[in-house]
């Protein structure tokens, strides 16, 4: 692997992040009120083990990052594209109930296509529309599952 031999900020942050998660898990376990019958092999043992495991791995990664042995493949990361897809997912979460499945799916599809560099909005929109309508009908009519109808309530 072609790695840059520098101190890795990302590695350091990942390591510290893992230690923070370990602390959250440990504190959650500490605050459990466990009946004395279960004191020995109760619900706390595993969280403590996992917390230790995460803390040790986090510390190891942070140490590797600091001592320049956390190798990360040098690559161009298009953070903009990542942010666009993330925004699309957040939109989907907020629009699914109010607008309904079909419009929310179309918006998500087009956002993702845009993030992947497509600028053919008409084509993407047409594909998204067909995909969303067909899946909506297949899921609600054929499989009998519930999907939010939203603004199309009564229309489809």
């Amino acid at each position, binding site marked *: 692997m072609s790695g840059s031999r520098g101190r890795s900020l990302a590695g350091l942050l990942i390591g510290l992040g893992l230690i923070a998660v370990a602390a959250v898990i440990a504190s959650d376990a500490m605050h459990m009120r466990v009946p004395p019958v279960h004191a020995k092999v109760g619900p706390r043992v595993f*969280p403590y083990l996992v917390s230790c495991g995460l803390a040790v791995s986090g510390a190891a990664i942070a140490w590797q990052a600091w001592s320049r042995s956390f190798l990360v493949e040098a690559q161009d990361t298009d953070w903009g594209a*990542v942010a666009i897809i993330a925004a699309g997912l957040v939109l*989907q979460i907020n629009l699914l109930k109010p607008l309904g499945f079909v419009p929310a799916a179309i918006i998500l*599809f087009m956002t*993702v296509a845009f993030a992947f560099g497509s600028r053919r909005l008409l084509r993407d929109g047409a594909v998204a529309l067909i995909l969303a309508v067909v899946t909506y009908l297949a899921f609600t009519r054929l499989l009998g*599952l519930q999907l939010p109808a939203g603004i199309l309530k009564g229309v489809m």
Partner: protein
Amino acid sequence: MESFGALMDGFATALTPINLMWSLVGVTLGTLIGILPGIGPALTIALLLPVTRTLDPTGAFIMFAGLYYGAMYGSSTTSILLNTPGESGSIITALEGNQMARRGRGAAALATAAIGSFVAGTVGTLLLSFLAPVFVKLAIMFGPAEYFALMVMAFATVSTLLGASMVRGITSLMIGLAFGLAGTDILTGQPRLVFGIPSMLRGIDTVVVAVGLFAVGEALYMASRRDLREAVVLPIRGSLFMTREEWSRSWKPWLRGTLLGFPFGTLPAGGTEIPTFLSYYVEKKLARNPREFGQGAIEGVAGPEAANNAAVAGVLVPLLALGLPTSATAAILLAAFEQYNLQPGPQLFTASGSLVWGLIASLYIGNVMLLILNLPLAGLWVRLLAIPQPLLYGGILVFSTLGVYSLSNSVFDLVLLFLVGVVGFLMRRYDFPVAPAIIGLILGPMAEAQFRRALTISQGDPSVFVTHPLSLALLVVAALVVVVPSAVAWIRARAEADPV
């Protein structure tokens, strides 16, 4: 020969029209997702779980297993023609396969991959038919302590053998175990990592984590890599009928690949990847003309493609007989068994014999279907590779959110999906393997249950894990798997620093 009789009954189950249809659906879908980069069998089965909840379990498992086999067939096509693996089991196929396609022998590469997959899949299924009952006899000797030790060994091997470094593998495992902790504790009803959110009491569904890591994380990663966006699809050139020379150079690698792949599948080492790398290495060592490797040696396609299919058959042995998943897809299959309240292991063979043997028999039939689907129809499947990446990933994310939402009609699951997806992206970006997390997520709660059961039986005495010989042996293997590679690396580093 009791398993022979059971297998014949299995064929009676598998040959009913409805089960034949499920098998056909499974292998077709498997080939499709195998060919499409970005969707694998683990993700697809996870997405199908909410939809198949009301289905007859036998039909559902026949479809899932056919899908797993089919993905291994389909992925070779992508490796050969696009130089990008359709699945991780076909990474190595791209090396020689794409070179063959560039030199106008793409058709021969596809043929040796498909026929090799057929040979390996059939031999592997045969081994599965006769080994699974043997494993069941072994499983009867397992108590809670042994099961716990077995899972610890699986954790150790999966997290040390996969990925760029052991620390990353273990971190991934721990992330999976942490996801598995969330929710209501089964034995005491104690809420864990719920943070006062009522929806969290149900815990984090396996489907949410699998789809988050495999689909959302993967989509975010692929979008971040502008350099991976445009790939060239090579046309199929040459004859699909292999020449006499190609046959004679292929059959031995097929058999060697099968013999490597099957045992590796049964070991908890993440399934199909490692045996394909080993097979490639072996073929290169044994080749009469090793210099041809890297320029389109047919052995380098035949061996690994047989190995990955045999490994899938191998994966099913410990999954069905012990309930031990050895790959990410097997872990999802285990979640599918849970969905139907079925417990893989000895009881499954006695209580649901028709399901197990129907499933195994369907694999023989599925292999024949796959050979037909993938060889004469290869040209049709190739058109799938023309789907532009923006549309492909748009579709993947729409189906992912749809599948996760329909689990329990909960928008909160979509929020979790998003968060897991971000974790998945970071893991992909910084080279953490994903399979240990999936296996930790599913085996974690089971390991905890066995751990506590063992300690309850022993009245809190932790020595049960080391006084039972089988449990002790498994724990020793687990410790060796972690210690030996680091020791070897340390010795090698010293030898390099101080050459004798």
